[in-house]
């Protein structure tokens, strides 16, 4: 096996991993704050792709779609938290999980009603349609490079917001101990609302970015939900750094296995997860107390 082929596949893996990272970070933001697993995360991803297509056909600009989609879906996420999830606080973590599962079930069918059951094509935006000729390394699609760069940018922004702003300070404190935070006079419910909106917005962004690389159909959320769970279990729940590293690792492992053993590609990530669970049940970067 030539080295250049492996390198090219490695980059493909990183682009795939970028989508996993965005999904897993969104899950982690929601879990870290609200302590719930969002089973509708895959559905929000799918809706992100469809809203992206809708905005794209309306305005004709990929960039407007890229900017608007996370905001629109994020606002929808705010309503979901306020109306559906909030009444369940204090009833244990299983009920929000079950609720979001039901929500995903209904949302998938809703998208089928509106957009039909068949897949929808999503073309790579013109500006990024080309690729880079890497000489011996072959040809690398520009869009994937853009996905990697954009994900890094989003992660940097998130990191700055969480580590360097007043809002980030509140978020970090809320993840530690929401009761103390509310005693200090901060409206925790509002912070949770925002965290849910940001998480769903990130899922929508992942869906939109993935749309030109993977097919767009109402069922696209299921596979990615499982992938995001695998990444989150490997990285450790509630850890942004863990999610980022595990996402990249899973992306690379999947695309390298598809080079040597294509029929094993989908299964390789589960093998990785099982291994991590046996060695370190709380995930690579997870805090043990969160795995309660």
């Amino acid at each position, binding site marked *: 096996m030539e080295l250049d082929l492996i390198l090219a596949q490695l980059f493909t893996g990183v682009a795939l991993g970028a989508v996993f990272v965005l999904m897993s970070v969104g899950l982690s933001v929601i879990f870290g704050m609200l302590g719930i697993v969002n089973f509708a995360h895959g559905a929000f991803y799918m809706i992100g792709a469809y809203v992206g297509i809708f905005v794209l056909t309306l305005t004709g600009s990929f960039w407007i779609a890229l900017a608007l989609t996370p905001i629109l879906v994020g606002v929808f996420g705010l309503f979901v938290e306020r109306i559906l999830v909030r009444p369940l606080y204090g009833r244990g973590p299983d009920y929000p999980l079950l*609720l979001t599962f039901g929500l995903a079930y209904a949302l998938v069918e809703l998208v089928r009603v509106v957009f039909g059951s068949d897949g929808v094509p999503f073309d790579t935006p013109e500006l990024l349609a080309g690729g880079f000729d890497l000489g011996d390394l072959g040809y690398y699609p520009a869009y994937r490079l853009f996905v990697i760069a954009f994900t890094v940018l989003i992660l940097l922004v998130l990191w700055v917001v969480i580590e360097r702003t007043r809002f980030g300070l509140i978020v970090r404190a809320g993840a530690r101990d929401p009761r103390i935070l509310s005693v200090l006079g901060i409206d925790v419910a509002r912070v949770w609302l925002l965290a849910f909106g940001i998480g769903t917005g990130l899922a929508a962004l992942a869906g939109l970015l993935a749309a030109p690389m993977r097919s767009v159909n109402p069922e696209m959320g299921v596979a990615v939900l499982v992938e995001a769970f695998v990444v989150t279990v490997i990285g450790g729940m509630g850890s942004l750094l863990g999610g980022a590293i595990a996402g990249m690792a899973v992306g690379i492992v999947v695309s390298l296995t598809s080079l040597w053993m294509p029929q094993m590609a989908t299964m390789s990530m589960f093998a990785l997860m099982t291994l991590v669970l046996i060695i370190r049940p709380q995930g690579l970067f997870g805090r043990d107390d969160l795995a309660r």
Partner: protein
Amino acid sequence: MPIVAAVLALLPWVAPSQALSVNILLYGLFATGFNLLFGYTGLLSFGHAAFFGAGAYGAGIALAHYGVGWFGAIFIGVGVAGMLALLIGAVSIRSRGIYFSMVTLALAQLVYYAAFQATDWTGGENGLRGLTVSVLSLGPISLNFLDPTTKYYVLFAFVMFALWLLSRMLNAPFGAAMEAVRENESRARACGFDVRLIKLIAFVVSGLVCGLAGSLNALHLSIVPIDTLYYQTSGLAVMMALLGGAGTFLGPFIGAAIFLLIEDIFSLWTPHWQLFVGIIFMLAVLFMPRGVWGTLAGWYRERRA
């Protein structure tokens, strides 16, 4: 237990169609197996399609590829499901709380992808075919399995046997130990229970029950579609158990009946019945978390008190 037996025995005479009553019987058993883990032990698994599917494929492959008799095939199906439950259970009970739901879901998807690839054994995307059983013979008795009423009562006999064993287990001290783990894991451990062993046994028994439901379903349908192993099938068990009442004995059957009736009625006038099932399920989570049967039983107990 007697209530369940009476209700299910009369079901073919009251249900709108024969197919519906068989489905309530088998999916009810599937949801009961899931409920053993969720309702009684407090572990929310999103991977029970793996055991339902393992039972179906185990029995189906034994019938179609190895020419095993129907009775042996059921045993093989249940055995395969039990072994798989032991494996998946051993890995997933290492994780706790909501991690558990994510890990069981992921491992079940692994089984789905594996079955999808192993086309020689499972038929892959097309599903497993060629396992039609028309006559059931066991010793001197032989029954016409194509007759709907005979079919129902043969399946009924198996379901009843499984439920009888389960009710014995739940009424034994082990049942109390499972509920102790559900109520407070740390306290159960402090009381001297081996929490991990209890979880693993509950997991395996739950897998065996779901495997039986899957095996019987393979006999009933004469094919095993690949979707049997998919995420949606795991979701079915979750929704049925919760709609009917998790942690109650009759609940999963009531839930299966509600779910399948909604499907039957709504699919008459819209292909998008899942939208309504999803909405009704969300409303149940919000306003009736104990499920229909759990809520009724609660009222009855309050009125007596």
